[in-house]
């Protein structure tokens, strides 16, 4: 981490987006994570994505669990309300917050310890319910804050910094998300911002439960030879399924097409995901094919990245619960309290 305070001044020519904010307006406090931590790159990608999406920062609620990853919401979107909850329980708190106010955008930030171990149940059930959110797991395969224990996403056979070989099978959150019904599933790499930013933009614009697993190397405890979550390993084995361009509904769609298979996916909010396939025949609208592709390639030691699955017309928990358009936290007593007359009738029915 750095000890230098961020300067308050900003360059007068710094570009503003359509809602009048500069990139700096999407920053948060100074990160206290280690220099070179993958998580800081993800924070930067979130900042970039929100700026480019022209989201007013205060319309985002950012929630996290416990761990290095879960500290990061303090380091981006300083004008947003944030909630650093308890270990592994971000999904339930986010679900409740989302039910209370459907008008905000929900960003859930978690880690592999937080989501794949202690919080595996909550992760699973939030996916099942289709809570509208962008759920990002900053996955480094290791417990950083407690100094280097394996997490549940560490690959079988991978080596810890101290040389211990992991004998347990890994939890694959992407495979689980696909199986449990998440309607937007991607995997990114903190070292590949060009891929990560459109992936996050697509997730934030999605109408249902969006999940992104971001491999994010831990420079302190999991960046050595023998680790499958190191910068070197992921760079060497990264197999993206496609290149993604995110085109917001307001942007004019520029045609700048390289030859190859192109698929346009238009989501509920009008935004467009233009996917240039890097694997012939890969169809991100086929959940089962996505699972099969991923598992086949992972078995070969590859890290499959990109937008793996999307149901562009997915709806969310509010839709399933038929809740009213007005946020529940904005209803007044007139709309909520049936009043004395109705109570007199209820009393009568109990005599």
């Amino acid at each position: 981490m750095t000890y230098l305070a961020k300067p308050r001044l900003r360059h007068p020519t710094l570009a503003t987006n359509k809602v009048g904010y500069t990139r700096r307006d999407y920053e948060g406090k100074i990160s206290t994570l280690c220099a070179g931590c993958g998580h800081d790159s993800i924070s930067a990608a979130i900042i970039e994505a929100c700026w480019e999406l022209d989201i007013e920062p205060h319309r985002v609620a950012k929630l996290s669990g416990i761990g290095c990853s879960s500290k990061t919401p303090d380091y981006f979107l300083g004008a947003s309300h944030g909630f650093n909850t308890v270990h592994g329980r971000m999904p339930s708190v986010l679900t409740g917050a989302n039910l209370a106010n459907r008008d905000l955008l929900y960003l859930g930030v978690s880690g592999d310890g937080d989501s794949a171990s202690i919080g595996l149940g909550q992760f699973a059930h939030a996916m099942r319910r289709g809570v509208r959110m962008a759920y990002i797991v900053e996955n480094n395969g290791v417990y950083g804050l407690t100094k280097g224990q394996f997490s549940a996403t560490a690959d079988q056979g991978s080596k810890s910094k101290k040389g211990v070989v992991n004998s347990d099978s890994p939890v694959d959150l992407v495979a689980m998300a696909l199986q449990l019904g998440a309607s937007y599933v991607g995997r990114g790499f903190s070292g590949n911002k060009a891929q990560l930013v459109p992936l996050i933009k697509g997730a934030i614009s999605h109408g249902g439960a969006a999940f992104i697993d971001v491999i994010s190397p831990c420079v302190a405890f999991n960046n050595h030879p023998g680790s499958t979550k190191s910068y070197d390993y992921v760079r060497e084995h990264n197999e993206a399924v496609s290149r993604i361009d995110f085109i917001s509904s307001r942007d004019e769609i520029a045609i700048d097409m390289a030859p190859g298979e192109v698929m346009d996916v238009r989501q509920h909010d009008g935004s467009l995901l233009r996917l240039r396939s890097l694997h012939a025949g890969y169809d991100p609208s086929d959940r089962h094919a996505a699972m099969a592709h991923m598992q086949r390639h992972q078995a070969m030691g590859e890290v499959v990245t990109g937008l793996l699955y999307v149901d562009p017309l997915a709806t969310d928990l509010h839709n399933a619960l038929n809740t009213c358009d007005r946020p529940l936290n904005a209803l007044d007593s007139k709309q909520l309290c049936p009043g004395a007359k109705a109570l007199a009738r209820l009393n009568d029915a109990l005599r």
Partner: protein
Amino acid sequence: MSAVRPPEGAKSMPPAPRIPRIEAVNDFVIKFANVNGSGSASANELFAKAILRMGVPVSPRNIFPSNIQGLPTWYEVRVTEAGHLGRRGGTDMMVAMNPQTWDADVAELEPGGYLFYDSTRPLPPSKFRDDIRVIGMPLTEICNAVYQDPRQRQLFKNIVYVGALAILLGIEPEVVEKLFGEQYKGKEKLLASNVQALHLGCDFARENLRDPVGLKVRRADRVGDKIFVDGNSAAALGCVYGGATVAAWYPITPSSSVAEAFQRYCSKLRVDPVTGQNRFAIVQAEDEIASIGMVVGAGWNGARAFTATSGPGVSLMTEFIGLAYFAEIPVTLINVQRGGPSTGMPTRTQQADILSCAYASHGDTKHVLLFPEDPHECFEHAAAALDLADRLQTPVFLMTDLDIGMNQRLCRPFAWDDARSFDRGKVMSAEELEAGRDFGRYKDVDGDGIPWRTLPGTHPTKGSYFTRGTTRDAYARYSERGPDYIYNMERLQKKFRTAATLVPQPVLRPAPQKTGLGVIYFGSTSPSMQEALELLEADGVHLDALRLRAFPFPDSVAQFFEAHEKVFVVEQNRDAQMRSLLVNELDIDPARLVPVLHFDGTPITARFIVQAIGAHVARTPAPASRETA
């Protein structure tokens, strides 16, 4: 309809003129021993409600197993013109419909009591007692003769015995018919078949059961405008009136019916008439941890939210309860207590979560608890809990129990003042932030320990903060500095003292004459305590009684101790938990607090209280009355 002739079994019962018989009008206990899943519950409830409609108060209790089908279940109805709604203890008439529990059921009858049973298959004399009256009725034979469908034969057996009991006890069959009419409105076929079954029972009793029964129901006017409802439904309705919009829960006996009733009431009362959309969201979560997590998230985001659970659920929720205490988030938690520890007695009642709720979670924590005495207060306190949670920005527990929650109880009607508005507490608006008002999330600006909060999305540039369970300064900035921590912890303590002024205050019932003896009680003990006080007074034992309605304890509780040398603390747990809480919080000499503890899982009775207090008073000289401050 086929004619039914009196069976052999009925004939063979020996007439027993020498046996004494209990004579009582509008004051007796009848107990139904049934097999779980046999459809007896609705028939028994019908029986109780018919007596109520005759203007005579009843107090029924369902004593049921943790089972869906096959295990024994009992339904006990206390008929009480005097309005004693606690459990009395003892049984004057047993409707013995369960061979599994026959021996114990027969043994439980008071001498001179009445045993009503299905006499289709004769039983040897050894199965009876010689100091009780036996009324045999061939229920199975009657039903088998009339109904072909096996399920009908079983279900209508229950209605047939209600018909017979109506005749034996003097309940007007027309009243039962009227109840059928209300229940099966628009379902004429069901109505007709139920009325038919009722008359089968009535007719048989008139013709064949001639031996008089000394227990009688006589029309009275002692019910008034009271309502008959279970506490779980009442609490759910209180949440509707109190403005809860988010409910998250996980099924657990005995609290599940809170969430189910909330769903039922919301479907009727909370659907937008124009759009058909819901003004509520109910989620059945994956466990209790997720349930309270959702409530915390919704509370943080400004919606009124609650969860309902029981002891094991509270155990799972404690980490979140600590977060909500420390991060200061409104949470309403309805704890319908059951017998603990561990899985304990899931279908029995206790008040054994007092300490685990008052101090839930690690570190220095204290929580607001409310103790409703009946469904009326379940409704009131549920609505109040939602206000208090918002006002105090902290978890508030509604501490009911199985006895109140799952039994229908006669109580004052629900009341609501339309002028009442929700107290949303200290929430800073966009206008206030825009006007430059200082916002320190954890700063005590009003001197009551309660800080101001902002809701997410309120203002583009002002009022945002990072909520966390870690320590922070008054402006919500991460801090591990000792002074910041102490400021915060002492402010939370001050807030808790403020809470004592806002919670429902205790209710004092002074003795008719000056006394140095006091008694403290709370929650479902209330009706038995009322009755016990009357009985003790009749015996010349005078006690000032204080009914606690909340923790933290308002000043009047300490004053009560100042005014009494010795105070009995009556509660339904083994470890005298409320006594511990009183000693701990008010710094009272424990020797002055005499525990009266009932914890076998059945509701406490007046008989038990009278016996315990009476025995203690008999052993020790009466203390002099203390000078009151």
